[in-house]
């Protein structure tokens, strides 16, 4: 009989255990179900937010009619035309001053000749000579002004031409061509900014705010800015930066100022290249504390005794002048100022690539090298 009681007890125990297991599993299933529901609810919330965002984007796109774009571009064009008129007035004024200075110089040169012929050279005549000197300085300033306005007006011509063509592209809704025009507008506006920044002096160029960031972004930006005009002369710009510890170099820089300097270096490389020659931007470590970037181009050269003078404010290279690709003589002095303010250094070399005797017929390899420290020295 005992074995019967034993079996009954075991049956009862098994039933209890089965009941406990069922209770436990059902709780786990319930928890899992709750979690799934919560996750689905969260997904629904995310989807709702995405739908709202898409609805708002769709609304914005519906409102962005060709007519509105055209209105926007027309107002931009009007603004540019007003700016253009102001620049024209400034230019006219500069030319008038230049003409007047030239006339004065003419008269004073005649006086000077008379002074030379006069045996009784007097202090009053020395004063006349000093006046001639001042007039010459004024004329030189007016000429520099004319060069600068040339650069600005050429850029503005590109901005205006692209703006009008973009207006037409938008009207016919050719978005691909419109995108190309928008990029050209943007790049020309940025390049115009670089030309205007070249006018600034050390005092007016703003405070330097140093921050650690990859220099590659700035070099890439400068490359993009002048790529379209380089392509039109079959000039290919390449950028290759050697990594530092397996990653792109991070430098402590004032990005606003350094971008201006890099834009000038890339623009010069393109501007003074002869067609169908490459522009190469190459970066590599220079020791353990610095990084070196070279800008190479093939074209109009720099004469050996000019390699320091080209960094002086207002100096324009002799071969560049005869080429008559107008430069203000301001860009490289600004570049040197920015690089030195970063605790860096800049150097240039220019060498003929053939035996041609006439420098103006000679293709030169020009190489500008900048060396920048990774870290800025501690300043008080």
């Amino acid at each position, binding site marked *: 009989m005992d074995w019967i009681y034993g079996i009954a007890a075991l049956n009862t125990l098994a039933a209890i255990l089965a009941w406990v297991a069922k209770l436990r599993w059902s709780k786990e299933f319930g928890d899992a179900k709750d979690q799934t529901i919560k996750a689905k609810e969260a997904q629904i919330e995310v989807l709702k937010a995405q739908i709202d965002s898409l609805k708002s984007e769709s609304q914005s796109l519906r409102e962005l009619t060709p007519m509105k774009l055209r209105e926007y571009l027309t107002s931009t064009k009007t603004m540019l035309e007003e700016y253009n008129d102001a620049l*024209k007035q400034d*230019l006219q004024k500069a*030319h008038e001053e230049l003409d007047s200075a030239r006339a004065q110089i003419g008269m004073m040169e005649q006086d000077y000749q008379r002074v030379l012929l006069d045996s009784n050279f007097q202090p009053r005549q020395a004063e006349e000579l000093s006046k001639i000197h001042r007039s010459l300085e004024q004329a030189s300033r007016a000429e520099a002004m004319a060069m600068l306005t040339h650069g600005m*007006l*050429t850029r503005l011509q*590109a901005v205006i*031409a692209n703006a009008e063509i973009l207006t037409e592209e938008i009207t016919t809704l050719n978005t691909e061509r419109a995108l190309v025009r928008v990029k050209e507008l943007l790049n020309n506006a940025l390049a115009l900014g670089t030309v205007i920044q070249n006018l600034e002096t050390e005092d007016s160029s703003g405070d330097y705010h140093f921050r650690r960031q990859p220099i590659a972004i700035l070099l890439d930006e400068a490359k993009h800015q002048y790529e379209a005009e380089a392509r*039109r002369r079959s000039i290919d710009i390449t950028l290759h930066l050697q990594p530092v510890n397996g990653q792109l170099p991070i430098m402590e820089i004032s990005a606003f100022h350094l971008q201006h300097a890099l834009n000038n270096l890339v623009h010069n490389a393109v501007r003074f290249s002869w067609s169908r020659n490459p522009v190469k931007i190459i970066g590599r470590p220079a020791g353990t504390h610095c990084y070196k970037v070279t800008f190479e181009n093939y074209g109009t050269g720099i004469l050996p005794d000019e390699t320091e003078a080209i960094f002086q404010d207002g100096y324009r290279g002799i071969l560049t002048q005869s080429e008559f*690709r107008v430069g203000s003589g301001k860009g490289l002095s600004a570049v040197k100022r920015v690089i030195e303010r970063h605790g860096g250094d800049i150097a240039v070399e220019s060498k003929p690539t053939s035996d041609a005797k006439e420098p103006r017929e000679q293709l030169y390899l020009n190489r500008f090298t900048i060396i920048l420290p990774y870290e800025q020295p501690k300043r008080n």
Partner: protein
Amino acid sequence: MSSLKGIEKMPKTIIWIEDDIDIIDPVVWPLERSGYHIIRLGSSDEALNMIRQIYKADLILLDLIFPHPQWEQTSISYPGLALLHELREVHHVKAPVIIFTVANNMISSNELKNLSVSDIIRKPVLPSELKRCVEEVLETRS
């Protein structure tokens, strides 16, 4: 008759002498879209090497400031005018010329008359305005 029709449909050729073409090229696009054939030349040397095309051109669009190695030896105020002088006097080019330039200095009307300059357009200008001026000069000539 059919050959005459062919002649009528020949696109008009414009020679554009300009050293900043790489920057301001879009300014002539409306002319190209209207069927004009634009030949772009970047310096006086390039222009003189293409003298045959210049003879055949219907119009010359001329910048005043661009590379011209011999210009410094002349007393002419701009490289562009020195080139135009050479085109007119030495090569007897008859095509109408529009000066298209940033330069704002006064050029004497006598000088312009002697060189048969049809118009002066100062940059910057709307591409549509440039096209209008070009067509006006071409219409006057035809």
